[in-house]
């Protein structure tokens, strides 16, 4: 595992965006050879999306040969509802970049057969050649996507009922009214994300600190599903100072000491202008 610690949210977002940018450009995507990206939602990745859009608008990064697969979507929420993950992705990312709409995949929470929708999603990932880089976040209860505590660490894309912690955390997006928060979602499984060639988890804020501690300093445990990535060969955790508050001083010092190595991954920052 790489644990990359930045001083604050903005710097963490920027580091993550630079990493994604470099990975896409170094891959040299072109017609018929797409870079596949797994994408998250929520408040944590917003800063990262903003930076990626900035690189795109400056002409340094194009998504024309990038395929994306989102982690999850609520069940039963109309697609054009302002809190659906379709709306989130459109407003915060897709509408600002040049991705081909046919390459942007998000689970349909209103599909007539939800399990079939999940199976087709897994098939599409396979047909795309698997995921090159899966970007995710972590819930306060240590979940990745909507793989709530107790989810099998070998799970695939499926329907999940949301845990109370998650519903409470999401209430702020539904006017604080718990009755309006969806109770079910379609989500990629822990196993689905583990299949990715590389995984990057973004964790910022003190309220995520305990989950980060459980995920990397304790054992692999299905009650804290992010801990599964201890067994993935290439995982990067990108976080800010606040998210490290529950870690041992020794852990933090060790990884901070490695920052000069980590920074070589984002400096120099590549640009598609040079490639041309």
């Amino acid at each position, binding site marked *: 595992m790489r644990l990359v610690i930045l001083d604050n949210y903005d710097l963490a977002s920027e580091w993550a965006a630079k990493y994604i940018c470099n990975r896409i450009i170094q891959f040299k995507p072109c017609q018929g050879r797409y870079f596949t990206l797994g994408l998250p939602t929520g408040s944590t990745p917003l800063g990262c999306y903003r930076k990626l859009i900035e690189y795109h608008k400056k002409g340094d990064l194009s998504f024309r040969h990038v395929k994306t697969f989102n982690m999850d979507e609520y069940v039963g929420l109309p*697609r*054009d509802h302002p809190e659906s993950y*379709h*709306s989130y992705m*459109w407003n915060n990312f*897709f*509408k600002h970049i040049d991705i*081909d*709409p*046919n390459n*942007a995949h*998000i689970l*349909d929470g209103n*599909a*007539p057969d939800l399990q079939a929708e999940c199976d087709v999603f897994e098939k599409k990932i396979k047909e795309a050649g698997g995921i090159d880089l899966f970007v995710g976040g972590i819930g306060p209860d240590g979940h990745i996507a909507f793989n709530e505590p107790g989810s099998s660490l070998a799970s695939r894309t499926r329907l999940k009922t949301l845990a109370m912690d998650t519903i409470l955390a999401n209430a702020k997006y539904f006017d604080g009214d718990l009755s309006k928060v969806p109770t079910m979602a379609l989500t990629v499984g822990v196993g689905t994300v583990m299949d990715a060639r590389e995984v990057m988890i973004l964790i910022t804020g003190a309220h995520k600190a305990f989950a980060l501690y459980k995920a990397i300093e304790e054992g692999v445990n299905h009650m804290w599903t992010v801990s599964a990535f201890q067994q993935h060969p290439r995982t990067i955790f990108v976080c800010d100072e606040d998210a490290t508050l529950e870690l041992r001083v020794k852990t933090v010092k060790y990884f901070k000491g490695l920052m000069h190595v980590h920074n070589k991954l984002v400096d120099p920052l590549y640009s598609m202008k040079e490639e041309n």
Partner: protein
Amino acid sequence: MPSNKSVSDAPVVQFTNCRILKNHKLQREDLWVREGKILNPEKLFFDEKIPADLQLNCKGSIIAPGFIDVQINGGFGVDFSLATDDVRPGISLVSQKILSHGVTSFCPTLVTSPPSVYHKVLPQISVRNGGFHGAGILGVHLEGPFISKEKKGAHPEQCLRTFEEGAFQDLLATYGCLDCVRIVTLAPEMKRSSEVIQELTSRGICVSLGHSVANLSQAEEAVQHGATFITHLFNAMLPFHHRDPGIVGLLTSDQIPICQQVFYGMISDGIHTNPAALRIAHRAHPKGLVLVTDAIAGMGLAPGKHTLGQQVVEMDGLNSYIAGTKTLSGSVATMDTCVRHFLEATDCTVETALEAASLHPAQLLGIEHQKGTLDYDTDADFLLLDDRLHIQATYIAGDQVWRRNTFTL
């Protein structure tokens, strides 16, 4: 399952690098247009999965809904109240010329005239969509002849009428044909006005109060029978009095029925109303303010003499009076000038100024689901403006029908 098939083969145009007036705010968003309507790009992305066919860089321009002028008597030498055998060339000329003022829809207005004029002119005018030929015609505004003698303003006294004998039948006999009539201005203190207002409203015609000496309760009664507009507030009505605010009192009246709103026209040319009065009205009832030009034949022309129906008016560049008098008779301001003057005089937001000339007149006429906004699926009638609200280009149904010489996308 949403279909992946394209809903239409028509080209999708994306206007980028602009600020659009949406949900009462200027927002950094792109505007998408297809087949004359404003398109929902999110639906296009997820349902049809197609990109835009054409992207146009608006260079930071403001995009606002096209202006709607509900009171315009003519312009460029054309007087709508003149009894000609063929009014269409005149209407076409004006509808073409006002595109450069940002007006994409309008109501040609006829001032008080003898019945022969109405019988000759009204059947020749029809509601029609705008386009390269000019701004769209929403219907006719009939200002008079059922108005007060004391507040006739520039209207000819000999043509004033009442309907106390036959109420609505009198009105119908005077006008002849109501097919294309959209607004009627009358004085509510006239006997039997309530029945007339009720009948007009039931036929979908907007009733406006003006050229009147009505007191507040007479005005409120008219509103309760269906009147929803006030013609050029302050002008040609009793002045505000603290014990009887008259028609002006409708702005803050508590007798307006719940589902109804009173709108009021203001000629914001710096002449018809003192800026302080404009500010008082705006602050009292900001959502009801509708900018109108009340433009006359001399608008757009050099100073001189022109007609306004049966009257002769003198225009000296800014002001227009009945020849030989100091009675104001319409204005020569253009709609975009009115919007800019309104912005400056009230120090309101750009959004407020733009909505007073687009959203509010659309709401008055009950067409806000189609015009007056940039909401998805509404008509793509819009303007590109610079930061000081000068029109750079005018679009109707997604087509560029006018642009400033120095402006290209």
